[in-house]
């Protein structure tokens, strides 16, 4: 059979802790953020890609279309984003490390089945290269307007992990991390990039394969007769079983018990929902990542993520030149939101300034976490471009006045 070695490779893609052949030779490359994300997926042993083309995420699909066949991976362009999202869920259950990529309108279409991924506890990665909306909006221009949709976009109540890269290098690095987190916590992980980062070309270092740490899938060690799909380990994450290996489990998007059988009452719902939430929240320390710059003596904090943090960084320097002690807190993990970190910062500064390319989304979280300990100022932008430095600087000056 033609597929013989193929199936083995796909199987390896989720159970291997070492990087499989296919990764680029180590060295420095020029990539845009989308290409770097695709290469990050390959480096993370991502071997199944399904998507529907959409600007500004198309380059991820195009690069995967060119690269996956030679890496032992499967590529398929699906008929829409509903299909793409479901397709990667199925692929993950068959043993693949699977991903999809999209932007605003497609992200909306993926929402229902992102929920299925969360409910079935399926490790997959979804990259959203954000553009400005609503609706078709500005198809080729930047936005950071899906940050709340990332958190709450699927119906029902749940926790989600979302990472925001600020450079092509980080698209590569965080794609690997997104896969690792998805495997570690058996949940879909969002890579929330944006048009500016996705289309920006910079130097990207591909490290030697042996320097890349990968989290293999948590496959059960139980014998088929002794396995139920939702008996959690101590960290609340249940080990998985690959399709076709004799476990013959049932899983459902309905509220279910440890056997994966429907359990349709308030008690069953209570048990499942809290476990799904707590497996993320109890492990939050392992998920959080951020960068601080010049925060030691800061009187004002610029809090930003993704492309906006690049503007924020130069605003910080400008402010320092003018004698304002500004610092930067760049969120890399935006969801789950780092409440404790922001509360701590809020206790040390006179104001937190939040520039983001939306009309004020993450700033709400900052306000909530700061709990009135400091002034929190939103610097909104409707999308289609970046903040200008003087405009943000002016907000800082006004906030300190």
């Amino acid at each position: 059979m033609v597929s013989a070695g193929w199936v083995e490779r796909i199987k390896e893609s989720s159970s291997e802790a070492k990087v499989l052949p296919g990764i680029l030779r180590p060295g420095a490359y020029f990539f845009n953020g989308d290409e770097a994300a695709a290469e990050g997926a390959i480096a993370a042993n991502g071997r199944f890609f399904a998507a529907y083309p959409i600007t500004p995420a198309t380059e991820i699909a195009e690069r995967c279309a060119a690269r996956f066949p030679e890496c032992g991976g499967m590529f398929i362009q699906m008929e829409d984003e509903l299909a793409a999202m479901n397709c990667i869920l199925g692929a993950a259950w068959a043993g693949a490390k699977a991903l999809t990529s999209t932007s605003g309108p497609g992200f909306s279409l993926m929402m229902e089945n992102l929920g299925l991924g969360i409910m079935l506890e399926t490790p997959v990665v979804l990259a959203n290269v954000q553009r400005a909306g609503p609706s078709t909006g500005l198809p080729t221009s930047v936005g950071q307007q899906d940050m709340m949709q990332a958190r709450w976009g699927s119906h029902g109540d749940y926790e989600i992990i979302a990472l925001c890269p600020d450079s092509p290098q980080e698209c590569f690095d965080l794609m690997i991390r997104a896969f690792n987190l998805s495997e570690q916590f058996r949940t879909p992980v969002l890579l929330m990039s944006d048009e500016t980062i996705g289309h920006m070309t910079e130097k990207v270092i591909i490290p030697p394969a042996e320097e890349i740490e990968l989290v293999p899938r948590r496959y059960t060690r139980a014998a088929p007769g002794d396995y139920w799909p939702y008996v959690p380990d101590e960290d609340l994450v249940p080990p998985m079983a690959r399709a076709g290996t004799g476990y013959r489990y049932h899983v459902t998007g309905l509220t279910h018990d440890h056997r994966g059988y429907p359990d349709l009452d308030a008690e069953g719902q209570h048990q499942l929902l809290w476990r799904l939430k707590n497996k993320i929240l109890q492990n939050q320390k392992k998920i959080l990542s951020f960068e601080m710059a010049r925060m030691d003596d800061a009187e004002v904090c610029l809090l930003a993520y993704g492309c906006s943090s690049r503007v924020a960084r130069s605003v910080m320097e400008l402010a320092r030149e003018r004698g304002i002690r500004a610092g930067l807190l760049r969120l890399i993990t935006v969801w789950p939101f780092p409440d404790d970190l922001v509360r701590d910062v809020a206790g040390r500064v006179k104001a937190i300034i939040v520039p983001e390319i939306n009309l004020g989304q993450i700033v709400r979280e900052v306000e909530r976490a700061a709990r009135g300990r400091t002034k929190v100022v939103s610097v909104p932008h409707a999308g289609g471009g970046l903040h200008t430095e003087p405009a943000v600087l002016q907000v800082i000056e006004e906030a300190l006045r």
Partner: protein
Amino acid sequence: MNPETPKKGTDGGDELPGSDGHPMDRILRMDRMPHIWCPGCGLGTTVSCFALAVNECGIDYDKLCVVSGIGCTGRAAGYLRLDGYHTTHGRAIPFATGLHLANPDLKVVVISGDGDLSAIGGNHLIHAARRNLNLVVICVNNFIYGMTGGQVAPTTPEGMKATTSPFGCLEHPFNLPYLASSSGATLVARWTTLDVRQMVNTFKKAFMKKGFSFIEVISPCPELYMRRNKLGDGLAMMKRFQSDRLVKHGADPKEADLGATGKILVGEFVNLDRSTYADAYFRMVSQLAEAKSVRKEEAKPGGKSPAQAGAKAPEAVGEPKAKPRPAEGDREGRGPEKKAAGTPAVATSPP
């Protein structure tokens, strides 16, 4: 696998949960019985036929996956002792696509309702058929949305009543075998729940087929479709099947239109062979691998640089210009690289 060997149940014991030793219990989850289906419903018959076909054809249970969408029919996956996935409304086919393409050694079967597969999931159905994915789709057509209480479906015959067509359905229904075959399905059949033997045989054929199989099962919904339209009970529909069905293998699916009354064309309409998506993909992969080994030859000392080797070759920077770079095809081989400076390989969490 020998179908005579009872498989250990997934309950941790040697006994299959809920089993009283019936041969069918190896494939049904008896611990989930009783099922939710109404008396007289054709879904039990369909699932029994499925189980019989699995038992009879000797297919490895462990390599058989079943995927359902949402609906009365969608519950089928939950009653089968196989790797089973109860997904979302309309999305069983794309989920199955992922399972199949990530592991083409699995046999993936979709069992779902007519509304699930042809209304909300209609787009996936036609594209899966067009791609000739190696999947079996069993579509139970009961002319109505059962699970949600009897709303009009894309299969409801004109004039028939449903809760959302209280004065009669205004729309022309799908001819599902025609839809599937014109989209590219390579095995297309229709049976009624009266045609138990034939249904089992076609299921067996489909399990062994390489390509997209679409089997429509016409099934009574006495509780909603029949009651509202004063068509009697489940038995009355079986009687209609007996008198109205017309077996015609190889019939043009175009002729398989269904009305509220009149003939019901059944049989295996289409059975042909055509390259599947997976076949085409693997062909492409082996061609690429061949081309790659040729390029490898060319790339030996004095060979082409990545930029020349292919449009997709990334521009490596920071390497000494004089050093000949291996061709694109050499990516997998890791040469004695100088350690890349700068950024850390993997983003790490803060303490």
